[in-house]
């Protein structure tokens, strides 16, 4: 058994969170640059501002977006690792707490009823998978809620098939309109149960923007959904244009013979995500 102190996990979450708040992922930046070359008018104005914004964010050490998000943390823990120290969730939350305070990030979490702020941006939304091996992989995705609010889940019938999946994805982006800060990335969960389908959609957003699914039938759904979304004409910030989505990412899991769950988790044009292996 390899022994790993949870303090190492705390420090890793801290590093990932600090970096994510100030940087777009390489895939996201490349997709935005490509979009800026395609657009004109107000949409072009918006995309140029977003690219200029990242340069200012780095220079001024200011978060890219004031919505520094809910901390979504995905832990893939090797089953040959024995964790020592503070409980895992506490270690992750401590990393978030310190990163958000030190980075001058916004504390954006509150009680859902009283709306009283938790003041330290915890608790993080933590998913843990046990995997083979003796390493721990940590992925950090700060998720803004302008786009999270526009996400949807539908329990389709098996007969709805691929066409039903495509309609669900495109309809979600259409209903969202200008509100989720397009051009969006659509993370799509297909299959599983009600809850695991939503998690698949979030996990799809952790993939490098624009990378296709390895299964060709899934990659083909991604391509077709992207093409249909970009015919909607919503454009950057809803100003009209050819690029309403930068990418569509699907993740799959076997589902029940009676169902076809489809969850669409929208991500704004600021994909801030990073991972590290300990």
């Amino acid at each position: 058994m390899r022994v790993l102190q949870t303090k190492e996990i705390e420090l890793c979450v801290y590093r990932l969170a600090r970096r994510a708040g100030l940087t777009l992922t390489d895939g996201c930046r490349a997709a935005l640059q490509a979009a800026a070359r395609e657009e004109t008018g107000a949409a072009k104005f918006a995309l140029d501002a977003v690219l200029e914004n990242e340069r200012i964010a780095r220079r001024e050490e200011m978060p890219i977006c004031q919505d520094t998000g809910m901390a979504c943390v995905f832990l893939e823990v090797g089953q040959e690792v024995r964790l020592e120290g503070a409980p895992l969730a506490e270690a992750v939350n401590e990393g978030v707490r310190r990163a958000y305070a030190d980075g001058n990030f916004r504390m954006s979490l509150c009680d859902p009823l009283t709306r009283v702020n938790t003041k330290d941006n915890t608790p993080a939304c933590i998913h843990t998978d046990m995997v083979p091996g003796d390493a721990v992989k940590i992925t950090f995705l700060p998720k803004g809620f302008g786009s999270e609010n526009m996400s949807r889940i539908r329990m389709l019938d098996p007969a709805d098939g691929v066409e039903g999946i495509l309609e669900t994805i495109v309809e979600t982006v259409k209903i969202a309109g200008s509100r989720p800060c397009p051009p969006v990335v659509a993370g799509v969960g297909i299959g599983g149960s009600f809850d695991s389908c939503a998690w698949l959609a979030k996990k799809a957003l952790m993939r490098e923007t624009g990378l296709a699914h390895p299964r060709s039938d899934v990659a083909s759904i991604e391509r077709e959904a992207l093409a249909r979304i970009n015919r909607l004409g919503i454009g950057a910030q809803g100003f009209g244009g050819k690029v309403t989505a930068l990418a569509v990412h699907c993740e799959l899991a076997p589902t029940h013979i009676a169902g076809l769950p489809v969850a669409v988790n929208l991500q704004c044009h600021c994909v801030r995500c990073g991972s590290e292996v300990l």
Partner: protein
Amino acid sequence: MRKLSLPLSARDVASLHAGDTVLLSGIVYTARDCAHKRLFELLDADMVLPFSLKGAFIYYAGPCPARAGKACGSCGPTTSARMNGYAPRLLDLGLGGMIGKGEMSEEVRRAIAQHGAVYFAAIGGAGALYGNAVKRSELIAFPELLAEAIYRLEIEDFPLVVAIDGAGNTIYST
């Protein structure tokens, strides 16, 4: 790009058309979900608001804390549609307009046209760009709301798009 200063005159408003880009300077007040709820509680109780609505501009935003030496932290717009229920009454009371992101309701569009107000779209996700263009920031109400409190911001050359103009024309197709 055209430069414009707040407060806007009737002539300024008349010269703005949906889709125009401007660099806006002057005083704005931040307010988002919770602050609007509080403002409405004050209005319903016939109490004085923390700032005068007459000709004022509300910026739908909740900034990050400022780091040492800066007036403001990251400060981009939030989704305006969540304030659809609040905006018409504030416009009726003399609000000059709003800055936010994304489409607003038909009711808001009508109120803007009726009062000759303006709705500017800031670019969502450009928080550092806007935060860096804030020259002064002062917390004026509801400190317990943290980022959702009302801040009086002095902004300089905010790049904005006219999203709904004083005649009620809109850049959004939906």
